[in-house]
């Protein structure tokens, strides 16, 4: 139901556009109407990779150009119809995506963007070297339809629209599926995504393959519209920039962004070129540039998000009310801790784990056991190696020495998503929520590691949200939440993957007294429900009431281990926290 309804707006938009285009008889306006869906699809292909994963590609012209040249050269040398060549172009684009993605995804951030910039420019020179400076599609006077050479320019527009509609629908399907969720998770925090059980490299490769295929297909169609292919017109900097421009203007990371950008910018550029350019040649570029700069300043994330935020604000005024109170009530119903039966079964065993960074021994020779259903508090002063220990446990770091046994199996050195699949979930000291997504959607990301289908994932997520007491606000966007609610949401994301062991990294940080108690209550309830938990925390107070056992680290090594009452009186612990002077006091 939901799905069908979401396909309605693009369908209506496409139909309206088609009706408008059929009413236009001027062949020049018709050409502009054809170019709008072309650049919209190219923007969408860019958006599929860069908009959702946040890995900015300055080089989408590589795929576009491969498609355009494949379509042109296939007609010239093999006399194949473009009806066949455009799908072939898509396949080639996909292969190019895979070949480019595999080495380039080793890079991140600006380095990725710059490396991507190099591909089309390099390919441009290859095509010049091959002698394809100017390629024109052979005119087919006897079989124009078979070679996609329509006398009626409306047909180009309709074909362009068909491509746009299918790309929009495809993007929407992806957006809602495990695929889209994985990409969004990568965008927010690639490390956290790995920790949530997402094989980031595999998803990124899928994204660039699909993105390259779409870009190449539309590049092939573009060649068919332009009839002339030159390296600069399909591999040039301006082509790559066009994809960024329409997507960033309209809105990044949404299916409507590139469409909005293209619908506004392409005709605007042409009108300026035709009207202003005829009077003062060159002025069109200046006006166009200023217009884009203004919109970027006023709506940095694109028009779509700006408009949506405005609408949401208006709606929020009308409906904002009682939700907050119900949340609080929901959480306080949980009772304080009561002793739990410790079964004694070891679920996680760490043996002689060490990791050094150069000369710094961040973790040295740490061994401990985590028993089923217990809460282990890992404490120690700043720089004691607590977070490094977690990073070793969940695979962010490879240990220099030692073993991590999960359920008896050595998992040390495995990638994070593999360890997550083995049943370890974690939260982070620094929260990275997906601010524009609802709480439920945020949590779904974590559910896919166990869920087989999208529906099952939503079910797991809803359960997780209920367990942390956020059901009442599940549909609000994360950007509107308080720190406490965000902490709970992070917790929900970690348990949505149904882990056996939960690693909590300073979950209580930044919370006030009352708030911390509420979160503690939730964690206790999780433990009562059978979860095994290791938690890092600075503040002793809350911890003493929460944990069954303490592991104390200092300078990367275990200084003691034991029950809370014993550990807090241990002079070595006091010394580690407060210094030698106070250790003496404590002994007395």
């Amino acid at each position: 139901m939901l799905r069908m309804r979401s396909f309605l707006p693009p369908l209506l938009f496409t139909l309206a556009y088609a009706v408008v285009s059929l009413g236009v008889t001027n062949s020049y306006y018709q050409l502009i109407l054809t170019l709008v869906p072309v650049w919209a699809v190219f923007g969408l292909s860019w958006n599929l990779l860069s908009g959702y994963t946040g890995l900015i590609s300055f080089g989408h012209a590589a795929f576009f150009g491969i498609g355009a040249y494949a379509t042109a050269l296939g007609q010239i040398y093999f006399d194949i119809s473009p009806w066949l060549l455009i799908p072939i172009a898509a396949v080639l684009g996909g292969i190019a995506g895979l070949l480019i993605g595999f080495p380039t995804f080793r890079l991140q951030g600006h380095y990725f963007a710059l490396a991507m910039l190099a591909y089309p420019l390099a390919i441009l020179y290859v095509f010049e070297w091959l002698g394809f400076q100017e390629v024109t599609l052979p005119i087919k006077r006897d079989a124009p339809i078979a070679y996609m050479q329509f006398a009626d320019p409306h047909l180009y527009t309709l074909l362009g629209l068909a491509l746009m509609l299918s790309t929009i629908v495809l993007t929407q399907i992806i957006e809602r599926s495990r695929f889209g969720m994985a990409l969004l998770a990568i965008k927010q925090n690639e490390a956290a995504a790995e920790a949530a059980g997402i094989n980031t490299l595999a998803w990124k490769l899928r994204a660039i393959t699909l993105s390259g295929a779409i870009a190449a297909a539309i590049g092939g169609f573009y060649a068919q519209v332009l009839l002339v292919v030159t390296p600069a017109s399909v591999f040039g900097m301006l082509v790559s920039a066009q994809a960024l421009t329409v997507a960033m203007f309209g809105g990044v990371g949404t299916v409507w962004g590139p469409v909005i950008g293209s619908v506004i910018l392409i005709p605007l550029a042409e009108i300026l070129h035709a009207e202003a350019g005829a009077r003062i040649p060159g002025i069109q570029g200046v006006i166009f540039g200023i217009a884009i700069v203004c919109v970027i300043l006023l709506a940095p994330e694109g028009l779509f998000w700006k408009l949506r935020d405005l609408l949401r604000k208006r709606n929020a005024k009308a409906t904002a009310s009682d939700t907050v109170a119900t949340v609080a009530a929901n959480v306080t119903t949980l009772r304080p801790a009561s002793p739990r039966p410790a079964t004694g079964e070891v679920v996680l065993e760490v043996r002689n784990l060490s990791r050094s960074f150069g000369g710094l021994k961040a973790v040295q020779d740490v061994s401990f056991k985590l028993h089923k259903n217990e809460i282990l508090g890992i404490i120690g002063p700043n720089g004691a190696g607590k977070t490094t220990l977690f990073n070793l446990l969940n695979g962010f770091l490879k240990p220099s020495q030692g073993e991590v046994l999960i359920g008896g199996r050595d998992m040390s050195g495995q990638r994070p998503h593999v360890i997550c699949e083995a049943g370890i979930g974690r939260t982070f000291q620094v929260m990275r929520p997906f601010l524009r997504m609802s709480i439920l959607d945020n949590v779904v990301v974590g559910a896919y590691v166990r869920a087989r289908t999208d529906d099952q994932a939503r079910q797991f997520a809803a359960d997780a949200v209920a367990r942390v007491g956020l059901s009442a606000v599940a549909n609000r966007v994360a950007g509107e939440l308080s720190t406490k609610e965000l902490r709970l949401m992070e917790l929900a994301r970690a348990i949505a993957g149904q882990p056996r062991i939960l690693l909590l990294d300073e979950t209580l940080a930044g919370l006030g007294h009352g708030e911390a108690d509420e979160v503690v209550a939730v964690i206790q309830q999780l433990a009562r429900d059978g979860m095994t938990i290791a938690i890092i925390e600075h503040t002793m107070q809350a911890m003493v009431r929460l944990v069954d056992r303490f592991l104390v680290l200092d300078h990367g090594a275990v200084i003691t281990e034991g029950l809370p009452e014993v550990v807090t009186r241990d002079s070595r612990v006091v010394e580690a926290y407060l210094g030698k002077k106070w250790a003496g006091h404590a002994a007395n």
Partner: protein
Amino acid sequence: MNKTSKGLTRRTVLSGAAAVGLAGVARAQTPAEIKVGLIVPLSGIYTRPGQVMKMGAEMGIEHINAQGGIKALGGAKLKLVVIDCGDTTEKAKNAAQRMVAQEPDLVAATGSYLSSFTLAVTEVTERAELPVLTLSYSDLLTDRGFKYIFQTAATASRQSELGLPTLMKLAENASGKKPKTVAMLMDNTATSVATAKALKEKLFAQEGLQLVVEEVWTPPLSDATPLIQKVRSAKPDLLLFMPNAVSDAKLGLEKISEFGLGQGKIPTVSFSITIAEPDMLQSVSPETVQGIMTIVANWGSKGHEALIAELKAKYKEPWMTQNVISTYGDMWLMKEALEKAGKADRNAVAQAFRTMDAGPSKYYPGGQLKFDEKGRRVGAGVVIVQWQSGVPVTVYPPELAQAQPFWPKKS
């Protein structure tokens, strides 16, 4: 287009009729004005050649109208419609579509400087059945089987075929011996690549020239040192230097001069008008370019003195490049076709171009005002231009020469 559209929807026929039909209506009464198009780059990096072509077109229109307009149409005046084709292939295509959609009563057009732009423009005009004259010289333009494109310049491959033997003769006459070795430095634009292909595959062997250095760069050239070093160590009898951007030409020539190869130590020849553009003198001294020759499709020559003087007075252009004289000539060619057609109709004008045989050409070098079945001007020749005392003057063919060529002597 007409043949295929009949089977299509009613709308196709209507829109087709809208484009072609208006011209038909216009022919019923004798128009006071006949529109001709100039579709050239007036924005972006190719603005300058576009502007110069506009000067030529404006002068042509002015002269034709001053001399009584189109006599066969009761003295109707020509009116120039200028369309900016921008600096990309896509913009050129859009501009051409705008031209045929917005100006249905155009009878002919000329353009568009860069052959890539002309290719895109003529894809549109061919389908709209609008005849287009062009000074672009890519062979591809007239190899597509198009019926509405007319190329006034010799094609790139023809230019090298014509140019190199002439150049060799010039060298032999002036220095007493034939050059034996040649170095070739070129950028990788379509024009240079086409020229080089003809040279390497056929002409060097035919002229007994041995290619000793061949270097290709992608514009913009950042440093010419390694290129010129290779030339210096190879000591060829002839250097073919083929840039298509003024900045590249400047870098190369300065380096040639710096290495002591200038002033004719190694005779240097180019194949485009870039090296003879007025802009060159803004960045290099007349001494640096002295003696350098270039083989071009057209140039202000003997017999054009009045025109050159007018250009100087009116537009402050120091001399007349191919862009001016060819576009000026195109206006006269359109007039010729209109007189022959006897009506202001694009198809009649196209037919007039196809069947025209108007004798020797006044504004293009060599050959006739006549087009072959591909749309290439019959007998189109080349001009050799040489820098002499800060001005590139025509030195070949003799009937057009403004000055005697001098072959730089090896010292």
